């Protein structure tokens, strides 16, 4: 089994790029795109529905709404889902594209001092560079706070 410790997943929502530690990732799965269209339980404002994963019903969260990315984004078919681990258990996120999993050496720090001038906490506070592109650095626990409290 390959060792993924200290690696990061790079994915996209629309045109925006994101990085996520594989420590936060439970699995990557593909589902029928109808999963988002069947209108099953939508318990929260950012919920797109529920997904059965490892004998549990877990929420599918719309990060595009949380992060105010274009709401007309097409996730494609089949649907690519990241299953993440949070404080309240597993939750999942549909993404537009998965670029791959890369070693930490592929990422470098990116200063963004202007982020700190905005008042209030936000779903992300750091940016890093990957292949000269700025990525939003995601943290599953931090993101979970925002959609759980909404």
């Amino acid at each position: 089994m390959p060792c993924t410790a200290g690696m990061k997943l790079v994915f996209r929502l629309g045109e925006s790029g994101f990085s996520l530690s594989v420590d936060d990732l439970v699995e990557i799965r593909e589902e029928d795109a109808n999963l988002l269209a069947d209108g099953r339980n939508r318990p929260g404002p950012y919920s797109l529905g529920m997904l059965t994963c490892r004998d549990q019903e877990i929420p599918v969260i719309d990060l595009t709404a949380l992060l105010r990315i274009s709401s007309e984004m097409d996730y494609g078919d089949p649907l690519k889902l990241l299953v993440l681990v949070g404080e309240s258990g597993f939750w999942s996120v549909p993404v537009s594209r998965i670029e791959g999993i890369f070693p930490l050496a592929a990422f470098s720090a990116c200063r963004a001092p202007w982020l700190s001038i905005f008042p209030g906490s936000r779903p992300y506070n750091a940016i890093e560079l990957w292949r000269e592109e700025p990525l939003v650095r995601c943290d599953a626990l931090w993101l979970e706070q925002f959609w759980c409290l909404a």
Partner: protein
Amino acid sequence: MSSQVALFLLHGRVYALDVEEILIILQEPRIFPLPLLPPVLVGVLIHDGEAIPLLKPDWLIEEPEDSHYCFSYVVVCSTEFGVVGLPVDNVLHIVDRREDRLEGGPDMDDTGSGRTFVYEQVRYPLLDIGRNVAELSLWDFRHPPPQGN
């Protein structure tokens, strides 16, 4: 205070900017979107390991919003609140301020500085980037509240 002023073309008009505020001028840098940026920002560019927010020129000069930004250069400026980029169509001249003069007045321009730079008897609105960027610090991504679904 710098003794030079840059004259540049922005949305078909010529504006002036104190050279002292300019760190570098980049030709057609790659612009990246980031979520939850204030609506007055186009995106960010990467320069020297730093993500630099790019201002919407419409906001800075109070022009009607134009969703299609076609610019050739970005003037990277240093302000009290950090470094920001200003897209411009072209940089026309760097002129010696001592050759001409600044004028101030309440209704002289639409740039927020209330000043114009007069060069060869032509008045150019003088941009005050710092003053505009200061308004960014008042922006809160939670307002208006997210709609969810």
